[in-house]
């Protein structure tokens, strides 16, 4: 069973994502801040990470950096789910190695679920990193 790590501090967004992903038959683990996320990845490498940016303690950028600089983690697909919608933020995340970026309020949850399925069912792979 594929394991999905949801990194998100908003409880109702966690619930919505968790319910939908579980309904699709995925195993879900949750981290509520950046530090916890890196810790959880260290304990059990997920198949995909859904990553918020603005969070307590450490931000999503920190987590993204940690994933992409670790040779063992760098091929984990990372989908950023954030309500930061500025071009500069999106560009920064993509340059740091995020595979996709969704401004949450602009997309139905089903689009996110479909994207997750694309990665996990092999239709899409994480971007290669040097």
């Amino acid at each position: 069973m594929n394991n999905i790590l949801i990194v998100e501090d908003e409880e109702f967004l966690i619930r919505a994502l968790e319910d939908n992903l579980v309904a699709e038959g995925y195993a879900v683990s949750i981290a509520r801040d950046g530090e916890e996320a890196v810790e959880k990845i260290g304990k059990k490498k997920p198949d995909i990470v859904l990553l918020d940016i603005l969070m307590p303690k450490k931000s999503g950028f920190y987590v993204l950096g940690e994933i992409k600089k670790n040779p063992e983690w760098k091929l984990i697909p990372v989908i950023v789910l954030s309500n930061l919608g500025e071009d500069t933020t999106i560009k920064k995340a993509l340059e740091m190695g995020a595979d996709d970026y969704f401004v949450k309020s602009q997309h139905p949850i089903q689009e996110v679920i479909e994207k997750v399925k694309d990665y996990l069912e092999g239709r899409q792979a994480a971007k290669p990193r040097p």
Partner: protein
Amino acid sequence: MTQFFKTKPKKAENALQESVVIYRALIETTGTGYVIIDTESKVIDANAEYVRLTGHANLNEIRGRSVIEWTADYEKKKNAEAVAKCAKDGYIRNLEIDYIDKRGKITPVEINATVVEKSGTPQILTLCRDITERKNLERKLDEYTKSLEQKVFDRMKDLEKEKIAARNVYEDLQTEKEIIAQTQAIDEAILASIADGCIAVNKNGKITLINQMAQKMLGFSSQESIGREWPEILRREDEKGNLIAPEKGAIHAALSIATTTITSSYYLRKDGTKFPVSRTVSPILLQGKIIGAVNIFRDITKEKEIEKMRMDFLSLASHQLRTPLSGTKWLIETIQKGITGKLNPKQKEYLDNIYQVNERMIKLVSDMLNVLMLESGIAEIKKQEIPISKLSEELFLIMEPASRNKGVILHNALKNNKSLFLETDPQILRSALECFVSNAINYSQSGQEVVLDAEEKPDAIIFSIKDSGIGIPKGEQKKLFERFYRASNAKILRPTGTGLGLNIAKMLAEKIGAEISFESEENKGSIFYLRIPKRSSKGAGTKSNNKN
């Protein structure tokens, strides 16, 4: 005059006679008039010259008559007084009198007279000299003198005039000099007191002027700067810290093609640290020739900080507003999917309503943030040359789902137009066009068409977005671009609109220097035009990009 000498003794008489004859001959031949009068002015005797002077033919005509008779009227009194005076004093000298003859001819004479006794009777022996010539000469001399005096006077007047003129010129020059000095002083004071840096270069790119503020900002003194090539003093970096070549600079452009440039950039101080500036660089033109360039720049560190704070605030505000809305959205979607159990029809309907309200809020937040972003000037303009066909295809890719949902037919008349290019910020232009196309779709009915087209004019490219939708009532057209304004028929057809779409479109258009206009008729449809000026190819054009 014969009887005058007749009573002398014989011998002596002869000698005397001889002498008398000689005198007589002398007197008769002399050019001087000679007359003897009594104290009553009456002629007793006279020589021929005197007779001539009086204008008579012979002595008999005048003997016994008063000399006053042939004295000119205006001299009669003077002459009579002179005779009386002579009789009293015994002589008169150099008396000038005008005689007048019967024909009115005036003869000026000079009279010297002496009283002699003749048998106890005083007689006045008078010498009269014709002084016509002398008078003429005197008159001529007088006239000459007068004319000379006039000439001198005239010349003096001319000289005076010239002097005045010269003084005026001098005064004008002085005034001009003072004005120039004043202007210069004012200019210097302005340059010294303005908070902007100001640097002027000559046509060879050498610095000719640097004001105090520029010296302070750059760390170079006037002595270090004047006469040096501008790239030595105005060193420029891009955001990433790479030095920018002078040839890419605005001063270079101003000096070579007379372009005026308004941009922001980073300057390096003498010590190598950098600071952000907003600059205007203009050519200095004298009778159409480039003689130099002026660079006015302002340290915008504070503005940048404020801009960043505002940007951070807007970013955070948008995040905070979107987060609960996105949570609501996703939770409703999760319920709608049935993951949490089946809903009855009423619950489903209400939930759909809540979802729509939430979507409306999401759109409103998004639009308002766009407005705030545009108003704050945070959005930067990044110009590039793009083919219009590509722009329209990208636009249609974005708009396709909305038109499909609504059943509106999108027609891209620019799809195959490969020749039309445009230099603008494609992102902003696309966003503006998106607003118009989205509006056209929203206010059209299923089956109606929305057409995107463009026309090239010599100075501009005009986009048009045509629909056959509900149109805008005549009386409401003026308010169309006002924030939150919605036309009455639009509110009925689509109650969920935010009233910000066209306002945003207008702001976006203004950002890239485009003009908006439209034609519309209620129930027939609307055409919106977006006119984008082409960049002036002439030197004096103004452009706004990232050149130095």
